């Protein structure tokens, strides 16, 4: 099967493939980076290699270099704690890591040898002709390993092969050549990988805006790169729409994913970009891309159950849980052996609850009570356990509070113990503890002190 570097090779060597901070990397130069990387790190051939770069651009170069060369490619989220990286490395028997994190160099990781991707911009000759296909050293049907965040908050590793990752990528080269995709997502997340693959395999140009430090900078990168196709979470889109420069983009494609897309944001996008095709995409790291909805309405049509649009079967269980069944040829799996991804018949339980409303199904949220804050999953139990440690807190319940800005926010209800001081002091202590121990999106935006918390018949606090 064609590897990523082969896809690049089918394009003209003068095609711009990536745009990073204003400079365009042409196909011919990208091939040279790949060949150079493989020659200098020949020990990676047939091995298990991890990638951990802080910026999407370096990650992208590494992915093209390693796909088809390494037997296994582990994509490590750059913000992962060192202990988490060790865990990932152990689970996958990763032997080498390409990356730019200081602590990975000195962390004394067992079996891991850290090397840096070198010579990216200096000394590259601009090759006009991508050259003949030749032997680029493709030896493997590389297994790609991505991290997801499972229902208990501990990231799980999911293995995909390239064919499952490319399942819904559009390959019409004529259209592809006219598209310039902007990357807003982290490239280590499934959504980021989908945009990257669509752009690379579709014959388009990818503009890296994931590392921008402000919305202004992000918009600058997109405008100067002439971005005309963009994918983001509803929260990202709402934020971009707060800038009056954003509507200057001539978008032809706008896609939403990662969070429930509500009617408001769909309407706002259609109004701002009347020429654009607006779609919201349902996907998960486990199942891959499920389906895409382009009719401007939230949720999905009930007809998808009989006529699924993208080659993946869809069903809703009696409890209202959305299930997907990828084609049998795909072999996604959890890396941990005692975890099963599918049931006996190949169905994946997405954990998302849907409810029938007329001729559509609408998304209601996660079954597990995981709260989606702007595309980030928050586990109420984790936040509760942090707050429980605060002196003066007898009981706490953490739940979702709907937000028109980020989909949801985290809300905490705290029952104080008998001898507690003033409400404000307690709230302040809770806030401080949360700020010190949680990610910003996990910190409760609203904290209420209550006199009692509801308990169900089993004696559990009700969220």
């Amino acid at each position: 099967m064609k590897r990523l570097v082969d896809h690049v090779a089918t394009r003209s060597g003068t095609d711009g493939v990536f745009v990073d901070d204003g400079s365009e990397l042409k196909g011919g130069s990208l091939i040279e980076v790949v060949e150079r990387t493989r020659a200098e790190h020949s020990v990676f051939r047939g091995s298990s290699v991890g990638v951990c770069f802080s910026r999407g651009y370096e990650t992208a170069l590494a992915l093209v270099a390693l796909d088809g060369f390494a037997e296994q490619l582990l994509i490590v989220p750059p913000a992962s704690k060192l202990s988490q990286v060790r865990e990932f490395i152990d689970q996958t028997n990763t032997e080498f890591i390409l990356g730019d994190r200081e602590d990975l160099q000195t962390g004394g990781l067992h079996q891991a040898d850290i090397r840096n991707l070198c010579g990216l911009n200096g000394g590259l000759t601009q090759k006009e002709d991508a050259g003949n296909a030749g032997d680029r050293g493709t030896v493997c049907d590389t297994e790609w390993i991505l991290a997801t965040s499972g229902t208990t908050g501990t990231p799980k590793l999911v293995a995909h092969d390239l064919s499952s990752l490319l399942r819904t990528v559009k390959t019409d080269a004529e259209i592809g050549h006219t598209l310039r995709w902007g990357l807003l997502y982290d490239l280590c997340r499934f959504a980021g990988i989908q945009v990257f693959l669509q752009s690379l395999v579709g014959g388009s140009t990818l503009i890296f805006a994931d590392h921008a430090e402000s919305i202004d900078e992000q918009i600058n990168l997109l405008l100067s790169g002439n971005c005309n196709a963009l994918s983001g979470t509803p929260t990202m889109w709402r934020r971009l729409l707060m800038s009056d420069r954003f509507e200057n983009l001539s978008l032809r494609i706008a896609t939403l994913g990662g969070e429930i897309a509500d009617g408001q944001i769909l309407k706002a996008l259609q109004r701002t970009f009347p020429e654009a095709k607006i779609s919201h995409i349902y996907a998960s790291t486990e199942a891959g891309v499920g389906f895409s909805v382009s009719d401007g309405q939230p949720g999905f049509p009930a007809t998808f159950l009989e006529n699924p649009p993208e080659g993946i079967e869809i069903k809703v269980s009696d409890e209202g849980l959305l299930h997907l069944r990828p084609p049998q040829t795909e072999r996604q799996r959890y890396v941990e052996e005692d975890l099963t991804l599918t049931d006996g018949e190949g169905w994946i339980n997405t954990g998302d609850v849907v409810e029938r409303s007329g001729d559509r199904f609408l998304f209601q949220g996660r079954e597990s009570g995981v709260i989606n804050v702007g595309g980030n999953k928050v586990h109420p139990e984790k936040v509760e356990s942090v707050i429980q440690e605060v002196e003066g807190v007898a009981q706490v319940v953490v739940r979702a509070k709907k937000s028109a800005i980020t989909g949801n926010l985290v809300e905490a209800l705290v029952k104080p113990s008998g001898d507690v001081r003033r409400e404000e002091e307690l709230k302040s202590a809770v806030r401080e503890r949360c700020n010190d121990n949680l990610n910003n999106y996990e910190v409760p935006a609203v904290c209420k002190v209550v006199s009692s918390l509801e308990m169900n018949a089993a004696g559990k606090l009700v969220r």
Partner: protein
Amino acid sequence: MQIINKFGTTNMSEEVRRIIEDMFLSELDDKDKDGMTRVPDDLVLLDSGLDSIGFATLVAKLEEELGYDPFVQMDEPVYPRTFGEFVEIYEEHADGQS
């Protein structure tokens, strides 16, 4: 017709504005606040240092304080660019509160 709100004044807009300003300032880091005690209308929200979650938190806290969330109430979505536009949204939807 005189409108007397819970603060006992008849100038509802002025009271709402002060509440919004104070709450906005309390959401900012000291560095971003930079000694500001009043917030100018032309402050560009995206430059203020408030990110999406900060902004959403501000709206949630204002809902607690004022009793309504105009972003939930609005039929046509509006994304404010400046602080002045943000306050205006609250003033426009004030009648919608129960």
